C-alpha cells in the first residue's frame, strides 16, 4: 500500500474520520454535521466524539429521528451556501432517505441546467456479522452507485477514510460515503501532514500475477487474507480496491486483469444485481480477449441477514470462499479445502 509520507501515526478508522471532519470544519465555516446523536453522544459508534466540544451544537446538530427530513434539510442547506455532512446512523436507513438523496440531491444540478449545486456528504455505513439482524446489517452501495449525479465512496483503511472524506467534503456534488462498521476500531498509518485522496483512483493493495481480486470496503481485508493463503498454492494474487464505485477507476482494474487473466470481484452487498455485477461485467467486456477463465463474483448471500451467529457468518464472503474460487479459476484442486 502506498503511503505518501514517512511521518505517520497509527490511528483508528474512527479517529481518521474524526480528524478529517475537524480539519475541514476548522478550514471552512460552512461545513456542519447533522444527524441523530451526533453531538454529545458522538454517534453510537463514538466516531464523532469530541467534535461538539470544539465546534458547538450549532455546527454539530442533533436531530430528531427523521432521516428523510434532515437529509432534505441538508440538501436545502447545501444549495444555499453550506456544506453539510449528514450522518445516517445505519446504512439500512438509506431506505428512508432515498427520495432526498436520489430524486433531490442527485438531480438538482442537472435539472437546474447547472445553476444550483448540492455539495453534501451523506456519511453512512455497511456490513454484517455484528449480530444486528436483517434491518441493521445491509450494504446498499449498489443502490446509490446506480444513480447518476451521486458519487459513492467506500473507504477501506484509516488512511483512505481521512483522505477520501476530506475530498468528499470539498466535492461540489452529493457524495455517499459508506464506512464499514467493523473498521471503526481498526488502526492504520495516517500521515501527519494534510493530504487528500482523489476520487476515481483505485489502489493496488497488493501486487500479483496470477489472479486479480477486486474488493471493496470490508472485503479488501478478506481479499488480502485470501491472497496470503493462496501463496501456499503458489498463486500470486493482485488485490485492487476501487475506493470509489462512482466514479469507478476502470483502467486500473482492467489493466490488472489484462495482466493476470483471471478475476474475482468481492463486495459485502447482496450478490444479485450488486456491485460485483457491474465490475465483473466491465471486466468480462473490456478484458475479454485476455481472460483465461470466467470472471467470478462473491457478494453477500442473497438472504435477509439472519440474527443467529451460526447463520449470519455463512452469509458473508470469507477468505476460504475466495480461495476456493481462485483455485478453481487457476486450475488448482479444491477438494482438500476445508470450511469453504
Amino acid at each position, binding site marked *: 500500500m502506498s503511503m505518501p509520507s514517512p511521518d505517520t501515526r497509527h490511528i483508528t478508522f474512527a479517529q481518521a474520520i474524526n480528524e478529517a471532519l475537524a480539519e475541514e470544519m476548522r478550514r471552512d465555516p460552512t461545513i456542519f454535521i447533522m444527524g441523530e446523536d451526533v453531538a454529545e453522544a458522538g454517534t453510537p459508534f463514538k466516531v464523532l466524539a469530541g467534535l461538539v466540544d470544539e465546534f458547538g451544537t450549532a455546527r454539530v446538530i442533533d436531530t430528531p429521528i427523521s432521516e428523510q427530513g434532515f437529509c432534505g434539510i441538508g440538501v436545502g442547506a447545501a444549495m444555499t*451556501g*453550506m456544506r453539510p455532512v449528514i450522518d445516517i446512523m445505519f446504512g439500512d436507513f438509506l431506505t428512508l432517505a432515498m427520495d432526498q438523496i436520489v430524486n433531490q440531491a442527485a438531480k438538482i444540478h*442537472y435539472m*437546474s441546467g447547472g*445553476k444550483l449545486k448540492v455539495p453534501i456528504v451523506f456519511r453512512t455505513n455497511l456490513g454484517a456479522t455484528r449480530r444486528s439482524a436483517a434491518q441493521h446489517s445491509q450494504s446498499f452501495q449498489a443502490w446509490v452507485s446506480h444513480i*447518476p449525479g451521486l458519487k459513492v465512496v467506500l473507504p477501506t483503511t484509516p488512511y483512505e477514510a481521512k483522505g477520501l472524506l476530506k475530498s468528499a467534503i470539498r466535492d461540489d456534488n452529493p457524495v455517499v460515503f459508506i464506512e464499514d462498521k467493523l473498521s471503526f476500531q481498526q488502526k492504520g498509518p495516517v500521515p501527519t501532514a494534510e493530504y487528500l485522496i482523489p476520487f476515481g483512483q483505485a489502489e493496488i493493495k497488493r501486487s500479483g500475477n496470477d489472479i486479480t481480486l477486486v474488493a471493496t470496503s470490508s472485503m479488501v481485508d478478506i481479499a488480502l487474507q485470501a491472497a496470503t493463503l493462496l501463496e501456499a498454492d503458489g498463486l500470486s494474487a493482485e488485490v485492487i480496491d476501487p475506493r470509489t464505485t462512482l466514479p469507478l477507476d476502470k483502467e486500473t482494474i482492467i489493466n490488472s486483469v489484462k495482466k493476470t487473466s483471471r478475476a474475482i470481484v468481492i463486495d459485502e452487498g447482496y450478490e444479485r444485481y450488486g456491485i460485483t455485477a457491474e465490475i465483473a461485467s466491465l471486466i468480462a467486456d473490456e478484458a475479454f480477449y485476455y481472460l483465461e477463465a470466467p470472471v467470478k463474483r462473491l457478494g453477500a448471500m442473497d438472504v435477509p441477514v439472519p440474527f443467529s451467529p451460526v447463520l449470519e457468518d455463512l452469509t458473508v464472503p470469507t477468505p476460504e470462499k475466495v480461495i476456493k474460487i481462485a483455485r478453481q479459476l487457476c486450475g488448482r484442486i479444491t477438494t482438500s479445502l476445508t470450511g469453504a
Partner: protein
Amino acid sequence: MTQTVNQPAVTVPSNELEKWMHMYQQMLIIRLFEEQVNELYQTGQMPGLAHLYSGEEAVAVGMCEALRHDDYITSTHRGHGHCLAKGAKVDRMFAELLGKAAGYCRGKGGSMHIADPVSGNLGANAIVGGSAGIATGAGLSAQQRHTDQVAVCFFGEGALGQGVIYEVMNMASLWKLPVIYVCENNLYSEYTGYKEVTAGSIVDRPKAFGIHTEEVDGQDVRQVHETALHLVEQARRHQGPAFLLCNTYRYYGHHVGDINRSYYRPKEEEQYWRDERDPLKILSQWLIGQKMAEPLMFEQIQQEVNQIVEHGVRFAQNAPYPDPSEVSRHVYA
C-alpha cells in the same frame, strides 16, 4: 375561517395604489402566461404536460411581494406562478417549457423543475412534498450564515399527506428557523377532494408542532400580502417559522390534459370560483370601489401583459434547442 373581501381597516396612502397595481400586474402575468401554456398544449406545441396555476395567483403574488430578492422560495409541480411572482421572466419561462436552451434550466428541467437562483427560486419540484426539506434547509442555512433571509415553502394541501413535512416542521420549530410553510388548499389533489384524504384540522397540524399558524382567503391578495408581511417580518427577526393556510382554487384541471373533470367536481363549482372568487376581479373591484383606480387602468395593464406574454412565447418558439452534447453536461458540478 373568515373569507373577507371587505375593506381593510387601514387607510390607503397613494403609494399603496402603486403597490396593488403592481400586484395586479403580477397576477395578470401569471394568468395570461398560464392561458398561453394551455394554448401551447392544446395546439400540440408543448412537450409533456403542465399544471396551471390559474385562479391561485393571489397566493404566490401576495407572498412573494412580501419577500426580498435574496429570500428563498421552493415550489411545486404547479410552479409557474411561484416562479414568476419571485421574479422569473416570461420569455425564459416559456423557453424552459418548450425545452429550449434559453430556458431557466437550459431546457433540462421543464415545467416541473424551473429553478432560478438569481431570483431566490430554489426550484419547482415534481415530488409532492419534495421541497419541504429544501426550504427548511435554506432556512437553516440562513441561520448558520447569520443572514436575515427567509425561506418560503409553497405546497398544495395534498402534500400534507407526506410525512416529511411534519419531520421538517418539527425541526424548524425546534431550531426557530426562518421558514414559512404556505399551504395552498385548492380543494383537490389530482382528482380527489381534500376532505377525503385529510383528517382532522389542517391548521391544528402545524400548531401541534408549536408553529405560528394563520389562515387567509387565498383569493384576496391584500389579505395574503398583509399576513405574509407579518410572518416574514417575524421570521426575519429570528422568531421562528410560520404556517400560512391559503384557501384557493385552481380553475383548470389537475394538468392541461385533465379536460373532463365533472366526475370529480361540478362545473358549477368552477364557475362560482371564476365568477365570485377571482383574485384579479377581487382586487380590481376593490381598487375601483375605493376610487383609487379606474377600469381603464386595468385595460392598459392587460395590454401590456398581453404584449409581454406574446413576446415571451415568440422568443421561446424561435429559440434553439440545446445542443445534443448538453445531455451529459451538468450531471456533476
